[in-house]
């Protein structure tokens, strides 16, 4: 497992991992509720890119059968990611709906301000 010989082949994956971590960081480090959801989206989209990167075959094409093509990229991850995208948008919709209600109830969408109000609530 020579690090340097694997480097070019795995670089794609590593860049994706960087993306994932950016998204993950936004979710946990930022207080603004909408930004957290944005971070979650970035995190998820990056995971999807990871899967799709896996599916690619050098010299392949889209998995739609056609005359004269012999190599196709792997269709299974595509299907999985289609499902995952939909799940992601469902989560986003619900999360944003909650944010709207929270704004009405607390007057703010910053997590630290909300926590301050909650500790008064008891």
């Amino acid at each position: 497992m020579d690090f340097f010989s694997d480097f070019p082949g795995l670089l794609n994956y590593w860049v994706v991992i960087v993306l994932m971590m950016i998204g993950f960081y936004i979710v946990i480090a930022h207080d603004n509720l909408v930004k957290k959801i944005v971070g979650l989206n970035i995190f998820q989209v990056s995971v999807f890119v990871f899967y799709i990167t896996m599916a690619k075959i050098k010299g392949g094409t889209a998995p739609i059968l056609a005359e004269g093509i012999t190599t196709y990229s792997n269709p299974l991850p595509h299907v999985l990611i289609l499902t995952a995208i939909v799940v992601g948008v469902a989560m986003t919709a619900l999360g944003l709906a909650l944010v709207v209600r929270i704004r009405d109830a607390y007057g703010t969408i910053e997590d630290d301000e909300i926590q301050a109000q909650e500790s008064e609530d008891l």
Partner: protein
Amino acid sequence: MTQFVSTHLAALQVVLALLAAPVCLLLRRPNAAWVVATAITWVLLGIALVLLEQVLEASTLIYTLGGWPAPWGIEYRIDLASAFMLVIITGIGSAVMPYAWASVEAEIPEERIYLFYCMYLLNIAGLLGIAITGDVFNLFVFLEISSLSSYVMISLGKDRRALTAAYRYLIMGTIGATFYIIGVGLMYMATGSLNMADLATLIPAIADSRTVLMSLAFITVGLGLKLALVPLHMWLPNAYTHAPSVVSVFLAGTGTKIAVYAMLRIVFTVFGGAGVFDGYGLGEMLSGLAVIAMIGASAVAIFQTNVKRLLAYSSLAQIGYIMIGIAMTSVLGMSAGIVHLFNHALIKAGLFMAMGCIFLRIGSVQIDDMKGLAKVMPVTMAAFVAGGFGLIGVPLTAGFISKWYLLQAAIEKGWWLAIAAILISSLLAIIYIWRVVETAYFQDRDENAPTISEAPWSMLIPMWTLIGVSFYFGIHATQTMDVAIGAAEALLGGIQ
């Protein structure tokens, strides 16, 4: 017709729940929605019981969806562990539905009730789908169905903190789901398959691969978030406390339990369990976290003034019990853990039902408002005490059975820390249960308190049914233990 039903029972288990949800959406009238939800849940319980019987006779049941055999299609694989989960979920649901009649009416605005039952049906469909599937990605889809519907249901609590509780659960839960998906991706990358049985044959050959190891790590963390394993538990206390009573009951009985099942299924059936546990020190890590949960959460529970929150922390401790049994990876330990999963579901659901009754009558769940409550709500408080005994582990209760077997398993493995933790946390449980009992029984009602009556029969009966069943299985423990042992063996033995 019976032929049709019996061949397709496995599919119907989930399909009926799925069909009922849009029907509820169309119905709009709260009563009609309740009737549909209740009827379907009872039918689902019937199906689950029949499936359990079939599995007890024939070992694993397989049902191919879409007619395509695995690994190209998705299949259901029902072994004893899955069947047990199906019974637990539908059983708790069946008790919750009659209870919900009065409770939902009191806590949720009338024009939304039909949507609530729609969500409930989606939730139960999701849980059942997880228990029954043999495909790791399919598990994710149904996990999200159940999670998304939970977030919505929790947010319906009257307190505005229900909204933030739901939001935080959404964020943490989605992070968990994303970690799970990352793990599945890594596993797929290494093997090319998504079918659990298939993976079980493929993974041993590449068990040394770093990809496989990280896959296990990510899946474990992801599911650990969902089952509220300390330190990934932060969403649970708020979610259980501020959700509507019915939701607390149902989630406490099923939500985390199904995540435990999912983890068991993946770690043991797919990754080939015992080798993974011992080889990577997973057992030690989990047991360490479990011990912290048992003692820490019980201790925190003592100081709570909100009784629902007290019960929530108690749940965290109970999850610790379940996990430590599993971490032992011995048949005895795992069956103790699994049987506790069952017992705790009954007991905690019953306790939260008691809180729902109390909330219905006095509009609060603060311990100070419960002074002298036993005089005016004797049936409810008696149920609380009985459930409390179960939490502590008094002989004749189901809780005693689980702790007894856990202790035996710990002695067998020589895990002295675990033994100490189990005993200490039981003592702590006595303290926090006693606090509530003392307030309700030995203090006097406030003079200014309005006169209240006992909770309605529609709520008392389901509550006592659950508590009663927990006592039944405390006395006739062999039935549940046999199933649990069978389930443990099925999981430890790998795929048949």
